[in-house]
């Protein structure tokens, strides 16, 4: 057959596309379960790491079941929808597309050595794509126990540095609310006068050089997400006062 004829070209292209599509679809389907399992366990790993529990991926599930006491789907008015399977069915990327009053706001409650921690998933925009993470708050509903950040496509060496320990550690013990319980958040600041981060009440951490927009994204997503938990936190606070 003449290699330059139209018929041959069409035939070749058709067969090639079919073969490639089959191979890719087969690979994708046969690896899907393994990939999903990796993502699921990594989520557990991330949630645990904010409360100081470091584990490899294989051990994550056992520790997650041991330490995570409850998973709540908070509503915008502060109530809890008990019918939602938070870990498996609430995807923040999808929730963010809804109006606040239709969203579920996931909250994980961990109990470690009789101390309670509230873990809130956060998600926002970096420079190129979404950035996300978890932030865990101590029982006073103000002090940060730990955070973890991740990203989809930030620049390696610049924006991608938000995943690094030195950046994450600078959030530990920072306060989210002021003394009147107004949400201030944590500002990733270029004009931070406290590079050693010894002042834990300034609501600021040091920014990453060359990653201004990613840093601003971190600042914004903390405020945007935390805002929706205020009604629930207020309920917790008033319950606590009532108990005392």
């Amino acid at each position: 057959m003449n290699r330059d004829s139209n018929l041959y070209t069409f035939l070749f292209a058709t067969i090639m596309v079919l073969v490639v599509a089959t191979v890719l679809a087969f690979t994708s389907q046969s690896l899907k379960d393994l990939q999903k399992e990796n993502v699921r366990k990594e989520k557990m790993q991330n949630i645990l790491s904010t409360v100081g529990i470091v584990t490899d991926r294989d051990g994550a599930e056992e520790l997650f079941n041991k330490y995570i006491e409850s998973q709540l789907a908070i509503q915008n008015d502060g109530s809890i929808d008990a019918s939602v399977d938070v870990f498996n069915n609430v995807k923040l990327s999808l929730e963010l597309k809804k109006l606040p009053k239709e969203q579920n706001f996931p909250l994980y409650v961990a109990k470690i050595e009789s101390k309670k921690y509230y873990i809130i998933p956060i998600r926002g925009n970096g420079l190129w794509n979404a950035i996300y993470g978890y932030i865990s708050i101590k029982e006073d509903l103000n002090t940060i126990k730990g955070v973890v950040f991740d990203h989809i496509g930030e620049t390696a060496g610049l924006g991608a540095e938000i995943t690094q320990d030195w950046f994450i550690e600078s959030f530990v013990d920072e306060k989210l609310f002021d003394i009147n319980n107004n949400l201030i958040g944590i500002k990733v600041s270029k004009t931070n006068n406290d590079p050693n981060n010894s002042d834990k009440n300034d609501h600021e951490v040091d920014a990453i050089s060359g990653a201004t927009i990613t840093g601003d994204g971190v600042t914004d997503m903390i405020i945007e997400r935390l805002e929706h938990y205020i009604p629930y936190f207020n309920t917790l606070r008033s319950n606590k006062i009532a108990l005392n």
Partner: protein
Amino acid sequence: MSNKNRALLSDPMDDNNPITVQVLGICSALAITVQLKAAIVMSISVMAVMAASNVIISLLRDLIPNRIRIIVQLVVVAAMVILVDQVLRAYAYDVSKELSIFIGLIITNCIVMGRLEAFALGNGVWRSFLDGIGNAAGYGWILILVAFFRELLGSGKLGGVKVVPDFMYEIGYVDNGLMLLSPMALITVGVIIWIQRSRNRKLIEQG
């Protein structure tokens, strides 16, 4: 291995280096040389993709219609890259996260398409395989060299481990943040080309 086949491996390392002589693949050489580790994994991934796609195109070289050969090459490279990405995601999740978008960017690496077009379409399977390995190695060692200097001078680390001792910082040494930005990668590649040509004078264009 005959001398001719050996030249397929050794030429791209120096006399016909894809980056410093052919000036291909500069984009990724600038983008992912901030850290040594990313550069090393990228080099290995490019090597896998180049060797595999060179072999496939070489096998099909008598069947590919001339008019759509670029499209065929593109489809083969893209399929290889997706395969590498999927396999990494299932079996080496951490590495796959580390590289994230860079794996996808292999498709746009001019060296891959360049070798398919210039070599694999006209040569046998074994020679094409060697050519793919050789060119990826030539690309890789420049990438790793650039990343070495950028990470060392830019963040005082190598492979993520701090190597500049603390007392250096105490007496006033400061990491050069400019090294982390792309322009310094271009300048570093430029310096490598300069050194290479002062050693290897036959590379200097006459005229």
